[in-house]
């Protein structure tokens, strides 16, 4: 046994001293319950939550994220403006008290469009993240837990996808299925964007999961469960997954942020979402020709985009710190 490092002191439970000297008393027949009020059972996630609650960074980013999600769900609460139809007579009218963000080239209300634009961005980013985590996570568990040739095969497949440059890969996919001339509906395009984001990023999640599984697989408690006769399903669901989830959670949060940015990039390049869909990327794309004369057209969607991306990245950072016991 070694001596206390900080960690061992922190994790030492409060004393359970027998108050009466009775030799037969259970070792930890403890203090009266009232003295143990901080002893409520707390899981590791509970500990992380305690940690998160004290971080202003967490509250700020969470507040923004909630705001954006509400915006995506019920945009009409925020604005009564029309995001799709415009009046050319108002083309590029500067922001004013009646139209806070001004009007774009086609005379559409920029404020309304920015609010409505949140939906496409958030939906695409969230769905792609979930899909990526599911596919990458599942592949990672299979590769890590089975090992051997299964691992070798899956890892090589992942390497191939990993080798494709992200922008190039999505340009190829989207110009093939969503090139100029195709007439896909709003949801089809969204599906295609989600698909291309997922296909090109799952290997990252898989690698993360695989290494996490490899490290956990040899843990004593997994061996103990095997010795007890636990089935493979039980070992994966009860023992492996809960202990491998933390890095995935962190990465997933950060990934939502980067997917919002990626969606905007693809829209900007003209291969992602297209009008009449409203999204921040499309707005930025449309604004590029008027940067000098009407910079506000670029400023508002870009500000929202950056705030959303930053919020998710900061949330991920806060969660990572909370989940990492070494940083405490």
């Amino acid at each position, binding site marked *: *046994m070694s001596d206390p490092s900080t960690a061992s002191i922190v994790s030492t439970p409060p004393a359970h001293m027998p108050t009466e000297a009775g030799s037969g008393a*259970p070792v*930890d027949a*403890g203090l009266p319950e009232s003295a143990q009020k901080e*002893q409520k059972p*707390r899981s*590791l996630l509970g500990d992380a939550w305690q940690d998160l609650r004290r971080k202003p960074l967490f509250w700020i980013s969470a507040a923004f994220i909630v705001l954006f999600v509400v915006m995506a769900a019920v945009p009409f609460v925020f604005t009564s403006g029309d995001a799709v139809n415009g009046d050319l007579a108002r083309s590029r009218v500067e922001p004013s008290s009646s139209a806070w963000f001004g009007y774009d080239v086609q005379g559409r209300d920029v404020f309304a469009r920015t609010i409505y634009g949140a939906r496409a961005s958030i939906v695409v980013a969230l769905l792609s993240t979930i899909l990526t985590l599911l596919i990458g996570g599942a592949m990672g568990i299979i590769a890590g837990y089975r090992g051997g040739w299964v691992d070798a095969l899956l890892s090589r497949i992942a390497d191939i996808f990993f080798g494709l440059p992200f922008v190039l890969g999505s340009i190829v996919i989207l110009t093939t299925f969503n090139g100029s001339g195709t007439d896909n509906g709003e949801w089809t395009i969204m599906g295609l964007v989600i698909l291309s984001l997922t296909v090109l990023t799952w290997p990252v999640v898989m690698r993360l999961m695989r290494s996490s599984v490899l490290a956990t697989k040899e843990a004593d408690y997994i*061996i*103990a469960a095997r010795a007890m006769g636990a089935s493979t399903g039980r070992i994966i669901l*009860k023992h492996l997954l809960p202990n491998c989830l933390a890095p995935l959670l962190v990465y997933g949060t950060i990934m939502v942020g980067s997917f919002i940015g990626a969606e905007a990039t693809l829209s900007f390049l003209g291969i992602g979402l297209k009008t009449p869909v409203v999204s921040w990327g499309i707005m930025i794309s449309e604004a590029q020709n008027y940067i000098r004369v009407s910079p506000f057209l670029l400023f508002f969607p870009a500000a929202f985009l950056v705030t959303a991306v930053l919020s998710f990245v900061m949330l991920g950072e806060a969660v990572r710190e909370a989940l990492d016991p070494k940083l405490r």
Partner: protein
Amino acid sequence: MTENIIEVRDLVKHYPVTRGVVFKKTIGHVKAVDGVSFDLKAGETLGVVGESGCGKSTLARVLMNLEKPTAGQVLYKGQDISKLSGGALRRLRRQIQLVMQDPYTSLNPRMTVGDLIGEPFEIHPEAAPRGSRRGKVKELLDLVGLNPEHINRYPHQFSGGQRQRIGIARALALRPEVIVCDEPVSALDVSIQAQVMNLLEKLQAEFGLSYVFIAHDLSVVRHLSDRVAVMYLGKMVEVGTEDEIYERPTHPYTQALLSAVPVPDPTLRDNKAIIRLTGDVPSPVSPPSGCRFRTRCWKAQEVCAQEVPLLQIRRGSDHPSACHFAERREIVPTHEAA
């Protein structure tokens, strides 16, 4: 005559040493366990001692059927356990349980104590009806000296000794016949170690358990064991009752091992005959020919390099010893007639 619960016959476990990532090439074998035989009788404690790398932990894994033996057999009541599968294997798992060394890593940190001790019942639902499980878990907690009220706590809220008690409760849940204890007290502090050892003894008396008690601490092993097997580099070099091994050791390695154990009595400082071994344990990938201990043995002769000494009763000794020149020698200092 008491029956043998476990019989181990010529057990061999080699791990391949490979090189290369895609095209693996075997370049040798780690001979972790290399021909080990012993019996475990009902209700007894067999201590297995040896230094790191002697194969005692591999032995535990093979006994638990976590690894398939390279050769040889482990018979549980006459059945070869490595040949079992499906239902028969599940029934066997109920009978042989494991207590591990490190109480900090052997409990899943995401599960409550109730889930941890209840897990054996979920894996083997026939052992206890669903409704009675929580009550059983509380009983078990009480049995190992923990407060049953703490059923909803997580492992990190307990100290090392308490966690080891949780591990023992888990092992006990299915009322097994055999518990394999792999260094169960070596990670614990002196005062806590004694509590856990007493608990193990109490449980053995109460449930008629058989223990295979693997440890490197010779004092702990003597305290708990009825019989003791000494391992060196994958082989058993001497087997006997606790008295035979500690009072009348005949193998030079056993003698050296015993003489090196510090005795907590400063008055014995100067009149202890200490055999100092030189050098380190050779690599289990390429062990020495003949007797594996010969490279560090002061008695080694020509024959030791050529002939593997069998583990058998030899002249001048009353228990099996794997040395060509087995000879009684008193090592353990006699304490003022305790």
